[in-house]
């Protein structure tokens, strides 16, 4: 049954909204991938400098186990997808032509997975992880399912940002995830992120997390916080959540 991209967008977003932010939202998103994208399993990995790497959300325990093989062996499609910031498709891990990840392929074939499709999880210019889709049968993913996978990978950036932010005592709201993404993906947010890189002496991911955390804490939008930073009416402090206005 063909499903429109717009319907997929709504279903994937709704799956996350109905779950608690963070890990549960990530798990719910992976389960929605299994339901809507014609695959048997899905997992979200965090791959970012300065934070622990590993599987975060998964559609099931077996998908989590399969995904973790990549970190056990230090190789796999999701690591390549994150490194190149491009999707990596492996429609048949059992094919003699498939020589990219021998150790990983051997392990997941043993678990009954023949095809893996990995999408980078990026927010603005920053790659924070990868979404892996697993299937028992070999063969390519349809165009529509691939497009749906890219949508899911966009959404997956939110629970990963939450994960990075939670180490700083931040919290999240239950707004429509597509609206949240749209608010972060704006010129003024990019520019303000750049200013924070310099002012807080942090990397781009950390700068975006800090900007978002401030928006949540003050009940404003990311765009409002960004404009205040650009106009120099708001200066975030270097340490954690202390802020001052001038």
């Amino acid at each position, binding site marked *: 049954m063909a499903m429109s991209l717009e319907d997929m967008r709504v279903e994937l977003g709704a799956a996350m909204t109905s779950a608690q932010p963070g890990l549960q939202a990530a798990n719910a998103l992976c389960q929605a991938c299994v339901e809507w994208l014609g695959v048997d399993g899905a997992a979200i990995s965090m791959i970012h400098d300065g934070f622990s790497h590993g599987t975060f959300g998964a559609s099931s325990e077996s998908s989590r186990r399969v995904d973790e093989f990549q970190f056990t062996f230090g190789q796999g499609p999701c690591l390549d997808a994150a490194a190149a910031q491009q999707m990596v498709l492996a429609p048949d891990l059992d094919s003699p032509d498939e020589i990219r990840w021998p150790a990983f392929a051997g392990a997941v074939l043993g678990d009954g997975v023949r095809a893996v499709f990995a999408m980078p999880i990026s927010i603005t210019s920053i790659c924070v992880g990868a979404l892996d889709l697993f299937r028992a049968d070999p063969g390519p993913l349809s*165009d529509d399912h691939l497009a749906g996978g890219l949508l899911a990978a966009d959404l997956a950036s939110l629970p990963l940002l939450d994960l990075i932010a939670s180490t700083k005592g931040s919290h999240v709201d239950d707004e429509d995830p597509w609206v949240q993404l749209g608010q972060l993906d*704006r010129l003024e947010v*990019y520019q303000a992120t*750049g*200013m*924070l*890189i310099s002012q807080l002496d942090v990397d781009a991911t950390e700068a975006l997390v800090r900007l978002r955390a401030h928006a949540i804490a003050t009940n404003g939008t990311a765009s409002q916080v960004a404009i205040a930073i650009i106009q120099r009416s708001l200066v975030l402090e270097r340490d954690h959540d202390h802020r001052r206005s001038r």
Partner: protein
Amino acid sequence: MTPDTREHDIIHAFVELSNELVDGYDVVDLLSEWTVNCARLLDVAAAGLLLVDGRGLLHLVAASSEATRHLDVFQLQRDQGPCLDCFHTGTAVSVPDLAAESDRWPDFARVAESVGFASLHAVPMRLRDTVLGTFGLFGTTPGALNDDDLALAQALVHVASVALVNERSASDRHVVSTQLQHALTSRVVLEQAKGVLAAVGDLEMEDAFAVLRRYARDRGEKLTVVAAQVVNRELAGQELIDHARSTSVLR
């Protein structure tokens, strides 16, 4: 502009673009230069190119003016405006008198008029059946572009689409979307780099862009590469600012 110099300028614009394509180029730098050339050739106040991302949203990738108030007018059209309508229909949208049509796009018309724009033409960028984005041309006085100018605008947009999408891969929708995403991500990094420089040198964003471009050109580096080095803190923002001061880009 006299007919002779205009013809010369048109030839120059196409030749410049084709030379860049052969030499290996930075897509955002190339398109920024291209929007400046288009604005001059078509005698409009500002021109900007919006491209669609994987989610179907329009993003600004290049503009003839880096003034924040101009960039805002382009960004606003993600939600509303002639460029968005042009993108959805895949056909050109002409608005010779914006004030007369403010009911159609109330938020957009208000902001566009507040920065002095009175007319707008939006031309689609297409690749076979796919609309990749839209090119917006703004005037400060009411008035329509004549048919020749519209045809020229469309031709310039066709050529620019070649810079974005490699023709050999044009039939593969995912490759096309990856190539567009590359241009959009480059623009994001550029904006982030402008932010870093604005904070380091206490600059306006417009000046930060000039500082970045001056440095990249004088070092023979791609704009996006320098921007990424600044954002990743591999290159100190102060070094770029010092360079700009020594070359009188900044006072």
